[in-house]
């Protein structure tokens, strides 16, 4: 790989590295707080490398959820990667199986965003994309372990730390409000979760509420004109 390729890839990764350091440290702290050892945090970031899924695991472990229900939620959460991954496929067509195997593992939301927009501009090579992804990935792994080490050294108020996690999910939820139907799906999820949790007295309520709310959003978009602007005036 040429020096230029490495420089270009690293440069593209810089802004993401900054946010990964901050979020990675926060993620390491909450994971340690949830009972994950430093080694477990390291392997988790290395093998899973999905911030939202790792935050979700910390939260659900703290809630006392079973492992299968956590894995199921992570599966649903990661379905969004299907479309991203397919969108990148045409740019790595001539690459080896091993390259695709590694490059796809490194496809976080942020790595996808930066690489896809550059690929579309036509000024980006698969090797540069891999350098950017590796650089984001190593930053995340190191930052989460540092976060875990910080969490292990300082006594941290668990109520407050747990709430930091909720603040994070609140913002991730708001970032998903891209249409009225998405907002209503969020409202439906809130209602369904509270009702199901009170009825079932079990954390599987999260899984059911997610499935119900995602279908409500889908049906709202498909069978009402909620997302169409000006539909009333146009008849």
């Amino acid at each position, binding site marked *: 790989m040429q020096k230029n390729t490495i420089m270009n890839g690293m440069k593209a990764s810089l802004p993401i590295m900054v*946010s990964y350091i901050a*979020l990675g440290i*926060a993620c390491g702290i909450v994971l340690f707080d949830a*009972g994950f050892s430093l080694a*477990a945090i390291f392997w988790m970031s290395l093998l*899973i490398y999905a911030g939202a899924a790792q935050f979700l695991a910390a*939260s659900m472990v703290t*809630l006392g959820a079973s*492992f299968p229900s*956590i*894995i199921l*939620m992570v599966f*649903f*959460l*990661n*379905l*969004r*990667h*299907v479309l991203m*991954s*397919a969108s990148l*496929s045409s740019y*790595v067509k001539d690459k080896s199986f091993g390259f695709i195997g590694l490059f*796809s*593992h490194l*496809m976080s939301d942020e790595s996808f965003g930066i690489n896809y927009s550059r690929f579309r501009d036509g000024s980006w090579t698969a090797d540069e994309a891999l350098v950017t992804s590796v650089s984001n990935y190593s930053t995340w792994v190191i930052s989460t372990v540092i976060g875990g080490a910080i969490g292990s050294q300082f006594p941290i*108020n668990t*109520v*407050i730390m747990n*709430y*930091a996690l*909720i*603040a*994070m*999910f*609140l*913002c*991730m*939820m*708001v970032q*998903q409000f891209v249409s009225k139907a*998405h907002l209503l*799906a*969020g409202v439906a*999820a809130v*209602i369904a*979760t*509270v009702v199901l*949790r*009170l009825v079932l007295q079990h*954390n599987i309520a*999260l899984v059911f509420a*997610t*499935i119900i*709310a*995602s*279908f409500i*959003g*889908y049906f709202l978009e*498909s069978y009402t004109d909620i997302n169409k602007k000006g539909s009333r005036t146009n008849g």
Partner: protein
Amino acid sequence: MGNYYGLIIGMAVVTYFPRFLPMLLLSKKEISPSFSKWMSYIPVSIFASLVASDVFFWENDFNLYPAVNLKLIPTLLVLVVAMKTRSLLWSMLTGIVSMTVLWYVL
């Protein structure tokens, strides 16, 4: 205390396949529009569900009194900040600061 490696391996498997298989086998055009439409509603539902299963409960009981359930007021503040900035860091800071103030003042 707990052994989390089973959880980590399970999570790794369900994370890897949605990333790997489409890149290897599919292009964007081959994914059905209804499937991708449905998929777009999953993250918002998950995050809303995670929030709701936490903030409306205090010591495991459903509780809507802001003076008892300290999470309610910070939630409103974080919502406002998140809507305005869409920034994870600002939202987290707002949550941590407002929760800290309430926790040590009340």
